[in-house]
C-alpha cells in the first residue's frame, strides 16, 4: 500500500511538471520566446509554475480554493503539457551516452541517485519545524477554509508566498506529501537550468559538473525535501540569469522580458528574492552596459514589477506596509526586537573580521549558519578559481562581483545558509568552470581538481544517504506515520493528545510549533509574540483571549511568560501531557522529558 501510494505521488509529481509546462506554453504561445530550445522549454515550465502560484493566490483571496475547481485546470494544463513535451522530445537531440567519458557517466549516475534520495525523503510525512509552523501549515489552513486570509501570529506568512501556493496546489490535488513535492520539482527545474546554462557556455563536462555541484549535496537534499521555499528562489534566479545572458549574447529582446518575469518571480517567493532580483538586474546592467537603453530597461522592469506586485499589494492592503514586518515595521516593540535578534543570531558576527573569515568558516565551521555544514565545499573552493579563465575573466569578474554584493547583503542581514540559495546556481557554474580551468592548467592542477571534487562529492553522498536513511522505514511502510512523527516532530505527543481529547470544536491558543498536525482551529501567541508579547499584562492577555475566542490553552511548562499569563485568566488545568523536543531528526537526539500544560478557559 505504501509503495503504491508512493508511486502514485511520484506519477502526480511528474504530471505536475507537465501541467506547469502546459500552462506556460499556453501563456507564452503568442508571447515572448527565445530561439534556444532548452531555455524555451524551461521558460515555459517556469512561467507555468509562476502562473499556477499566482492563480492559486488569486483564487484564494476570492474564496475559491476547491478541489473541484483546481483539478480540471490542472488536468487540462497537464494534457497540453504532455503534447508539448512530446513535440519537444521528438525534435530534441538524443544524448549519445556511449561517447561520454566514464567520469561523465558517473556524474550522471550520481545525479540520478540524488533524485531517488530526494524522492524518498519527500515521500515521508512533513516533519521539518519551519514547514510545520508555516510553509505547510498555512497552506493547510487555507485549504481547510477554502480561502486565503492573513495569519497575524506569524510574521513570516506575510512574506511573498509563491512556493507555498504550489504546495497548496499539491494539497488540493491530493495530500500533504503531494504538496511537499512542489519544492523538489522546483529544485529539479533549477538543476536543469544550471546544467543547461553551463552546457551552453562551456559544454557537457561543465554541465555535468555544475549540476553535481548544485544538486548533489546534503544541503540541497534538505532544502528540496523539507517543504522549504528556497528552491523557488534558485529556479527563478537561474532562469532570469540565463535569459539575461541570452539577451547579452544574442540580443534577443524577448529574453529580457522573460528575465524580468523570473526576476519578479524571485521577488514573489520571499523578500530575499527581491534583494536577489535587484542585485541580478544591477549586475546585468554592468554586464551589458553597451546594450543598455531606456527600452531595454523597461522590457525587464515592467514584467518584473507586474509579476511581483500582487504580493506587495496584498501586504500594503492588509497591513499598510508592503514589506511587512520589515523596513516600515508594524510589529509590536518586543516582537520586532525579537525578530531582529533572531535574524541577526546566525553566523559568528557582523564585524569586518567576520567577513574576512567567512570563506574559512563556511568550509570548516559552518554550523552557526543554520545547516551551513551541509553546504558543498566545492562552491567556496572552486568558484574563485574560475578567474583562471583569462579570456573570460572580465565576464567572470562582473559575475563574481554580483555574487559578492549579494553575499555582503546576506552577511549584514541574516546569515542563514538557506538564503545563499539565490547565488548557488551561478556559483555552481563558476565552480564547474574553475574545476575545468584548474584541471586544464597543469598536472598538479588536474590531480587536485579531480581529487578534491571526487572527495567532496563522496562525502556529500555519504551525508545525504545518512540523512535520507531516516525516511526509508516510513516510506516503505515498515514504520507507521504516527511512530515516525513521534520520533521526528517536537512535542508530537502533545499534538496527538489535543487531537484525541479536544476534538475539532474548541479554539486553541498554543506556543507549540507542530501546527500542521493540529485538527482544531488554533492561534498562537505569535512566533515572536506578535499577537501577545511575553511581557503583556492581565488586560492585554484577557483581550487576546476574548478577541480570538479562545476556549483552551496549551503551553509548554518551560514557557514561564505564558504560564504567568494563563494565571491572569479564569483557566482550569485539565492535563499535564509528557512531551519531548526533537533536537536532531537525523541523529535521533531528543531533549529532556517535559510537560505540555492544557487549560480550559472559563470552566
Amino acid at each position, binding site marked *: 500500500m505504501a509503495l503504491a501510494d508512493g508511486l502514485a505521488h511520484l506519477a502526480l509529481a511528474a504530471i505536475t511538471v507537465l501541467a506547469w509546462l502546459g500552462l506556460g506554453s499556453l501563456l507564452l504561445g503568442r508571447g515572448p520566446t527565445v530561439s534556444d530550445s532548452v531555455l524555451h522549454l524551461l521558460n515555459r515550465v517556469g512561467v507555468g509554475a509562476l502562473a499556477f502560484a499566482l492563480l492559486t493566490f488569486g483564487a484564494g483571496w476570492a474564496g475559491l480554493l476547491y478541489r473541484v475547481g483546481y483539478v480540471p485546470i490542472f488536468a487540462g494544463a497537464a494534457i497540453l503539457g504532455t503534447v508539448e513535451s512530446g513535440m519537444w522530445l521528438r525534435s530534441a537531440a538524443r544524448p549519445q551516452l556511449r561517447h561520454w567519458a566514464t567520469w561523465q557517466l558517473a556524474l550522471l549516475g550520481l545525479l540520478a541517485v540524488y533524485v531517488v534520495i530526494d524522492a524518498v525523503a519527500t515521500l515521508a510525512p512533513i516533519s521539518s519545524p519551519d514547514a510545520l509552523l508555516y510553509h505547510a501549515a498555512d497552506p493547510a489552513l487555507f485549504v481547510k477554509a477554502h480561502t486565503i486570509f492573513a495569519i497575524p501570529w506569524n510574521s513570516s506568512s506575510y512574506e511573498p508566498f509563491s512556493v507555498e501556493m504550489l504546495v497548496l496546489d499539491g494539497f488540493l490535488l491530493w495530500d500533504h506529501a503531494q504538496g511537499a513535492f512542489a519544492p523538489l520539482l522546483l529544485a529539479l527545474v533549477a538543476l536543469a537550468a544550471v546544467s543547461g546554462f553551463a552546457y551552453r557556455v562551456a559544454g557537457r563536462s561543465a554541465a555535468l559538473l555544475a549540476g553535481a555541484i548544485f544538486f548533489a549535496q546534503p544541503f540541497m537534499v534538505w532544502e528540496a525535501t523539507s517543504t522549504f521555499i528556497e528552491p523557488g528562489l534558485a529556479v527563478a534566479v537561474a532562469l532570469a540569469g540565463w535569459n539575461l545572458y541570452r539577451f547579452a549574447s544574442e540580443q534577443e529582446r524577448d529574453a529580457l522580458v522573460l528575465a524580468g518575469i523570473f526576476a519578479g518571480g524571485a521577488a514573489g517567493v520571499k523578500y530575499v528574492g527581491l534583494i536577489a532580483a535587484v542585485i541580478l538586474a544591477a549586475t546585468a546592467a554592468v554586464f551589458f552596459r553597451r546594450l543598455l537603453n531606456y527600452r531595454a530597461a523597461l522590457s525587464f522592469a515592467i514584467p518584473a514589477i507586474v509579476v511581483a506586485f500582487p504580493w506587495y499589494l496584498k501586504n500594503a492592503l492588509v497591513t499598510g506596509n508592503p514589506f511587512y514586518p520589515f523596513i516600515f515595521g508594524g510589529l509590536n516593540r518586543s516582537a520586532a526586537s525579537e525578530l531582529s535578534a533572531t535574524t541577526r543570531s546566525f553566523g559568528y558576527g557582523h564585524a569586518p573580521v567576520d567577513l574576512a573569515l567567512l570563506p574559512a568558516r563556511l568550509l570548516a565551521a559552518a554550523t552557526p549558519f543554520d545547516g551551513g555544514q551541509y553546504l558543498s565545499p566545492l562552491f567556496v573552493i572552486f568558484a*574563485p578559481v574560475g578567474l583562471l579563465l583569462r579570456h573570460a575573466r572580465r565576464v567572470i569578474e562582473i559575475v563574481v562581483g554580483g555574487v559578492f554584493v549579494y553575499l555582503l547583503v546576506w552577511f549584514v542581514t541574516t546569515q542563514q545558509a538557506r538564503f545563499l540559495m539565490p547565488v548557488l546556481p551561478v556559483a555552481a557554474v563558476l565552480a564547474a568552470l574553475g574545476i575545468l580551468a584548474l584541471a586544464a592548467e597543469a598536472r598538479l592542477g588536474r590531480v587536485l581538481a579531480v581529487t578534491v571534487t571526487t572527495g567532496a562529492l563522496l562525502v556529500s553522498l555519504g551525508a545525504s544517504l545518512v540523512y535520507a536513511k531516516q525516511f526509508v522505514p516510513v516510506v516503505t511502510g515498515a514504520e507507521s506515520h504516527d511512530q515516525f512523527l513521534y520520533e521526528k516532530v517536537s512535542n508530537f505527543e502533545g499534538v496527538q493528545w489535543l487531537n484525541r481529547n479536544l476534538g475539532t470544536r474548541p479554539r486553541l491558543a498554543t506556543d507549540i510549533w507542530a501546527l500542521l498536525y493540529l485538527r482544531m482551529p488554533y492561534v498562537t501567541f505569535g512566533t515572536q509574540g506578535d499577537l501577545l508579547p511575553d511581557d503583556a499584562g492581565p488586560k492585554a492577555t484577557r483581550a487576546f483571549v476574548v478577541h480570538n475566542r479562545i476556549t483552551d490553552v496549551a503551553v509548554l511548562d518551560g514557557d514561564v511568560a505564558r504560564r504567568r499569563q494563563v494565571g491572569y485568566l479564569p483557566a482550569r488545568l485539565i492535563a499535564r501531557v509528557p512531551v519531548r523536543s526533537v533536537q536532531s531528526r537525523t541523529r535521533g537526539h531528543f531533549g529532556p522529558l517535559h510537560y505540555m500544560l492544557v487549560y480550559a478557559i472559563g470552566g
Partner: protein
Amino acid sequence: MNLLRAKTPPPTSRTEAARIKHHRPQPSLSGRDRTKLRVRRVYLLAVVWVCVGSALYAIEVLKLVRGLG
C-alpha cells in the same frame, strides 16, 4: 560561445609590430613573459587556495563524522 576556449587574438601587422618594438624601451621581461608570469602566479594562488580550502573542509567532515558517532 564557449568560455573554456580562448579566442584567437587579432593579427597585428608586421609594420605595426616593428613600430611598437622600435618606440618601446626594451624591458627586461617581454610582455608575453610577464603575462606568463602573471598566469603562473594566479595558478599557484589557485592551487594553494584549493589545498587550504580542502584542509579546512576536512575539519568540518571530521566534526560531522564525530557527531554521527
